[in-house]
């Protein structure tokens, strides 16, 4: 076992946040949030199967102020994760990994995610 103190790489807060790194960690954050959204979807389907009272209770929860706030957050997470997921699938094929394209698609994501979130919310509410 090596006992010599070895140099550590700088801690995360040393680095200047860059577009690519911020978008990358946001993919994870939105993904974890969407796990909760998925369980909410299961709750909705279960309430439909249980009966009218249970479904109306679910709908009342979803239409309450905290429910609407949560829905808005979940829709943003879905739109963001979906758009960035398409970026990821592009990278998997080898497309868009160069700095120029990584930044271009990154800024496109920054512009599209809030716009499509607003559009979706306006549409489903």
């Amino acid at each position, binding site marked *: 076992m090596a006992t010599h103190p070895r140099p550590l790489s700088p801690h995360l807060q040393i680095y200047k946040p860059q577009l690519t790194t911020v978008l990358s960690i946001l993919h994870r954050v939105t993904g974890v949030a969407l796990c909760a959204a998925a369980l909410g979807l*299961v709750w909705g389907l279960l309430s*439909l199967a249980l009966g009218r009272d249970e*479904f109306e209770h679910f709908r009342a929860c979803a239409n309450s102020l905290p429910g609407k706030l949560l829905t808005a957050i979940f829709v943003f997470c879905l739109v963001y994760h*979906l758009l960035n997921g398409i970026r990821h699938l592009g990278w998997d094929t080898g497309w868009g990994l160069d700095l120029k394209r990584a930044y271009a698609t990154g800024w496109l994501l920054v512009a599209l995610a809030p716009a499509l979130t607003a559009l979706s919310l306006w549409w489903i*509410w």
Partner: protein
Amino acid sequence: MSEFRTELKQVRGLGSAHEGTHHWWMQRITAVALVPLSIWFVFFLEAIRGVDYLAVRYAIGQPMTAALMLAYVCAVLHHAYLGVQVVIEDYVHERVAEVGLLIATRLLFVLAALTATVSILRLVFLAADPQ
């Protein structure tokens, strides 16, 4: 770069996790499925906006809608588990807590998938035979 290991040696055992590219590949398969399914789901939400309970129940109970909803929920939960698994493996360094969390989340997501499946099937049967 010189490589002295044979191709057979490299492929045997399927790497340190012993499952090769299975995790990565399933994550991509579910991701590709979720692109159209998520868009369909938002359209579906718009279609049932403000609709009465029985009408929503009947809508999801239609064979094609039920199949798409089943595909969506199962792909979502599978994809979600694969993602959360990596997050746990990356950030939980205490081995007992890591394995415990992996087991707990897996059981939770499997239970959620079964609950959704049984619920959707119930809507299908209710729609086929309205009281």
